[in-house]
């Protein structure tokens, strides 16, 4: 649906050149929700704005729905933009227009007849759950409602792609959840491709299928959302993951003396990560029975990555004559993510 190759963006400021994007390559499939995460200044905003040419790329190619965006005329670009919806962090609604007329705006400029506009706007307002606010002005709405108007407006011309520029960053956590729910819903109903940029890992975790991590104008890591969460490679990705799931183990636990099972040795502190199906296997009782180790659960939690359960268990294991090692090898053989945090003797 979207193919970006060798995209570069250089800004000129006071005679100095700032390279905001350095050779970006991306491919986004039809119907997926693709997240781009990065700290501020990483180049996220530039990247998303290059996709619909709000920023003109310095170099490279952007193909959306088979159209090379960097090579089309101004008129063709306006046509193409009608099929690429966009929503913004600060909503950017027209203050002088009612909710109804805000949603009608893209239809007006596309030259849709008045009667059709009315039907379409009411349909869109129903879709985002704001049919009772048609005559309200944006200033009378809450942040979440404003973003719903933004979404209705972005969907007016039946776009194939929806770009979300930090669409939930100005919203409280609860409203963020409901807006993300709406986006996921639209993605399902309309098979809409969604590109979402954010600095919040929570947003990625909630709805994305795939993720790219952007740092200093480059994509440093990219993969399925579950892979990024369960096995982040770069330190930036690790930071983002731990912003959602704290991976810190308190020092008292790391360093405390072995107390498990009396005199037994070979204590290890192990983190086990379960994803999807494996979250429902009785692995702890299996290792205790089969390897006669002792196991003490220090902490555990279960979350959802989009719709997959994702478990995280911190376990203290101890046993004689290398049985601990065997138990760990067994756990690994089940395809669980294992991280040995403390390797005692």
């Amino acid at each position: 649906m979207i193919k970006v190759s060798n995209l570069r963006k250089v800004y000129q400021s006071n005679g100095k050149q700032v390279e905001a994007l350095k050779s970006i390559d991306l491919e986004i499939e039809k119907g997926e929700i693709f997240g781009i995460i990065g700290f501020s200044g990483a180049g996220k905003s530039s990247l998303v704005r290059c996709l619909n040419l709000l920023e003109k790329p310095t170099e490279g190619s952007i193909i959306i729905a088979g159209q090379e965006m960097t090579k089309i005329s101004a008129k063709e670009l306006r046509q193409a933009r009608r099929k690429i919806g966009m929503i913004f962090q600060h909503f950017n609604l027209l203050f002088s227009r009612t909710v109804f007329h805000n949603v009608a705006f893209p239809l007006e400029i596309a030259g849709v007849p008045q009667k059709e506009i009315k039907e379409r706007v009411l349909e869109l307002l129903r879709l985002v759950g704001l049919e009772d606010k048609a005559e309200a002005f944006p200033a009378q709405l809450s942040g979440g409602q404003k973003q719903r108007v933004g979404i209705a407006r972005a969907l007016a011309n039946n776009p194939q792609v929806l770009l979300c520029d930090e669409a939930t960053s100005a919203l409280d956590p609860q409203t963020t959840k409901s807006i993300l729910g709406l986006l996921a819903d639209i993605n399902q109903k309309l098979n809409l491709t969604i590109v979402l940029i954010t600095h919040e890992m929570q947003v990625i975790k909630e709805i994305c299928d795939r993720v790219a991590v952007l740092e200093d104008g480059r994509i440093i890591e990219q993969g399925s959302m579950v892979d990024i969460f369960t096995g982040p490679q770069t330190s930036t990705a690790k930071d983002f993951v731990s912003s959602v799931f704290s991976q810190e183990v308190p020092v008292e636990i790391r360093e405390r003396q072995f107390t498990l099972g009396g005199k037994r040795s070979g204590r290890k502190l192990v983190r086990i990560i379960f994803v999807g199906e494996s979250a429902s296997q009785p692995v702890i009782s299996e290792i205790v029975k089969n390897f006669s180790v002792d196991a003490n659960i220090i902490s555990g939690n279960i979350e959802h990555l989009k719709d997959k359960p994702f478990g995280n268990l911190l376990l203290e294991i101890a046993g004689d004559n290398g049985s601990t090692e065997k138990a760990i090898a067994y756990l690994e053989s089940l395809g669980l993510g294992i991280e040995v945090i403390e390797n005692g003797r």
Partner: protein
Amino acid sequence: MVDSLIPNLIQASGETFYMVALSTLFSVLIGLPLGVILVVTDRKHILENLILNQTLGWIVNALRSAPFIILLVAITPVTRLLVGTTVGTTASIVPLTIAAAPFFARLVEASLKEVEWGIIESGLSMGAGPWHIISKILIPEAVPSLVLAVTNVIVNLIGYSAMAGAIGGGGLGDLAIRYGYYRFEPEVMLATVVILIGAVQIFQSLGDWTAKKLNKK
């Protein structure tokens, strides 16, 4: 004079109203497009054209830097060309417009710059062209502030029109100078000042009220 004070004041007020009304109309007709051009041709705006922008800016500044009383005299050839004469209320509309239009253009520029770039960007993202951005976003979003700008122009023109009167333009200024000053009839002077103050107060309040009504922010 005292007997004819009231009819004189009514006639002079009518002349002032005529001058202010028409010169406001022409100032808006000329100043609004000028203000729009000053904004949209600026750096990084939707129709960036720095040469046009700077040339226009220079002309606007030049016209605004001439004191009105000088402008009034300096442009008499233009006035004669346009209305065939250089005296009378109709003739004074030319210098009044030339003085107020660039002023209004700058006020329009300031008003339109208040419209957040994000809103313009959202219009662009929906496929709006320059004309749609101007007519459906920039101007409608700035309406409350534009109403205040027009109010400002009216108040200024009421003052200017009194000066135009002084060189034969008619109106309240003319009356005040001829009767109040040259003939030393202070009650005429006082009456014109009271009318001018009243007019300014009324237009300003009306402008403030309308702008507030229209503001949906």
